[in-house]
């Protein structure tokens, strides 16, 4: 049995035929589309390493069946830099902030952390409150213990993206939706 679906992946429309309904978005990206940025840390929605944006919203791709997401628009870590309004290969503000604030060590959870942060900022619930950022980022485990840098990075990116004189950042958040 095969299941044809279409997905927009990092801005590119793709028609795919799933030979198996069991395929999750995570395994589709990693094993079939060679987009290995999203990581499999637990495969059960317990670590957040597989976080991607689906229609602009952060979700655990390990628990999302691909066939059920026919028609969805997906952003992975590989496609995030391209969404920077500065254009070219420039890092997204969240990516840049993670480097600047050392929001990672081994880097394995990092793509999930970054997409979770992009989603969190876009959800618009935290403002500049570090406690709300910590709570909002608690679905992404970091075993190296880079939480302090992660929180700093998200706050810095949030400030950069919502500053009144940086309209492109706002635009970006809207685009992601």
């Amino acid at each position, binding site marked *: 049995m095969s299941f044809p679906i279409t997905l927009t992946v990092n801005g590119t429309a793709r028609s795919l035929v799933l030979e198996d309904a069991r395929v999750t978005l995570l395994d589709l990206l990693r094993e079939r589309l060679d987009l290995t940025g999203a990581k499999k840390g637990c495969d059960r929605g317990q670590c957040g390493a597989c976080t991607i944006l689906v229609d602009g919203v952060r979700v655990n791709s390990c628990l999302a069946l691909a066939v059920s997401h026919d028609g969805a628009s997906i952003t992975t870590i590989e496609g995030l830099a391209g969404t920077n309004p500065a254009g070219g290969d420039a890092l997204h503000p969240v990516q840049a902030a993670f480097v600047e604030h050392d929001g990672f060590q*081994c*880097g394995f959870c990092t793509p999930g952390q970054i997409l979770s942060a992009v989603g969190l900022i876009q959800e618009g619930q935290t403002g500049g409150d570090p406690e709300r950022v910590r709570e909002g980022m608690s679905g992404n485990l970091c*075993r*190296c213990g880079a*939480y302090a840098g992660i929180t700093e990075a998200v706050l810095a990116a949030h400030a950069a993206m919502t500053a009144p004189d940086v309209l492109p950042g706002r635009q970006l958040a809207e685009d992601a939706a």
Partner: protein
Amino acid sequence: MSERQRHGASIGQPLTRRDGPDKVTGAARYSADFKPEGLVHAVMAVSAIARGRVTHLDVAAAEAHPGVIAVMTPGNAPKLAKSPDLKDNPFAFRLDLLQNDGVRYANQPIAVVIGQTLEAATEGAALLAPRYEAEPVSVALGAGEVFTPETIGAGSPTSEGSGDVAAGMAAAEARIEASYDTAAQYHNALEPHSSVAQWDGDRLTLHTPTQALWIAKGRLAGLFGIPPENIHVICHYLGGGFGSKGFIAAPQILGIMAAKFVGRPVKLVTRREQMFGPVGHRAATRQTLKLGATRDGTLTALDHHTLTLTSRHDDFVEPSGILSRHLYAAGAISTTHAVSRADIGTPIFMRAPGEASGSVAVESALDELALELDLDPLEIRLRNYAEVEPITHRPFSSKALRECYAQGATRFGWASRPRQPRQMRDADGLLVGWGLGTATYPAGMMQGEARATIRADGTALIETAAQDMGQGAWTVLAQIGADGLGLPVDRVDLRIGDSNLPNGGLAGGSTGTATSGTAVHNATQAAIAELAALAVADRASPLYGAGNAGVTAADGRLARRDDPARSESFSEILSRVGKACVEAKGQGQGDPASRKTYAMHAHGAVYAEVKVDPDLGQIRVTRLVGAFAAGRIVNPHLVRSQYYGGMIWGVSLALHEHAVLDPRSGRVMNGNLAEYHIPVNADVPSMEAILVEEHDPHVNPLGIKGVGELGITGTAGAIANAVWHATGIRVRDIPITLDKLLG
């Protein structure tokens, strides 16, 4: 010490990670991200029983599942050149590689299913529906016959001490005796153990996460009966190890065997729930501390006895008592270990092996004694400050612990701490407590080698088979290389994470930067000497006749030491003699003479604030201040991250992590990341790490001590003490969970 002595042009600079851009864009490829042409997927089936044998696997059902290629079982698995149970060196831990049908612990691999797709292989493994002949199990601490191990940890003596402990206890004016339990913990690096293996005849290309490429290569060469040079292990990025990837584990090797079995490249990724068994853990301990002291707090005796568990089939003994040999001065010291066997996977090194579990017990006991004596916890630690290493009486190569206590105390505001517990509340009525713990970890070194190449275009290449598992090798080895060569760091290329490079040792035991950094440094000095030899022998060079030792390297130029105005660029020297490059190797290892003369340890002081709900018992660590001294700091930005990471592991040890085994089955009942709790972001609201100056002329030429494990020590004890200070309840069963505070 002046800034100039402490920092080079690159060393000491807070550079951001050179691998940062790759890691934030998804360009960093970890082992399971590789996909050679024709790759198929392998999935392990693991045992549901903890002891016995597998009597039946429904291979036919698995094979019948669409997409399943093959089922590898003890009946058909490739035979190995050497038994995986042969202990031809103490670090050859026994491995379960389908060489028989026996089961020695729950979650042991019992078969591997290879499929065209991951989905097919996964379901194939489920369809095997194993049947067993089960034997009764024993997994509880002290349940089996208790014996004295020959060695502990990495071959340390099982007991060590000095003086007469009984006499010291008898002479004491205050005494405490208490037992502290620490729980079994599993490393749970976010990156699961995996292999992407490809055979070409008897040559193997392997992507696998490892903290030690050459050790992995050596182990595999023995098992498969091929020369080590036939094995190419690649691991540019390592998604956390913490000791579980120091030695290649069974799942990784099963992936390699599966590739041989089906004659195709194979990827095998351990499922998270399968990581609670075959890839090591930190064993549970019960530590009994007897402390005696005079009225002023001077320790007359310190007796630290550890009871722990190891597997029924192999030996690794958590060395919890070792830190008591180095940390506090006491009139008499005894450190002993005992162990019993259990039907569990073999324990292994896990971040600060021994020191982490030992520290929480010792720091708790010391505070219990301070309470008896009505002393401030800081005061009792200063009273017993070890000016020389207690048992050996060797001087410390350096020890700025007093400064750590002082700077941390000031920053934290320790002086206003009330002596009695349950004295502080926050504005919301939550109990507030403050605690202190001393951090300590040996400044060890392994053996490593590096190669430095100076190129005619004015750039350089540093190569060593070292690892970056997050500690920052991609950045700091380049910084060390740049300073050694007198080049800006952006003109230094670095190659690591590949077993074809010179042996980079082990990223573990807080030895990585000291060892491979020293190797890199020595390689750069040798390469500069090569270059200088060319120049000083060349009549056309302004350096002619200066003698090798008479030149210095800076800003891409060699200059005469006696006349810095006479200099020449690296490019000019190489171009004129028509060479594309010069290269040289350097070794990194400790100097045996100084290591005999001096005790070498990093130290720190960790101050913790916790809040505890007075009725509900829920605990939160609201503030951590650590002050650490670890010799020369190559990159303060990244070292701070290492300390934070260690401190969060301390939070985890104190409050969260514990594997829960059902004693009837020997199975881990919380073997997943939803129920085996490690801290989340909201668990650590405020952290600070103070980098205390420390100059160490003995530890190695660069004065570097390790920082990876230091932060976990001290922290867990500080939190346990802070919980007592908040609540008045001394919990001796670690981790401290809320049910233990409900009273």
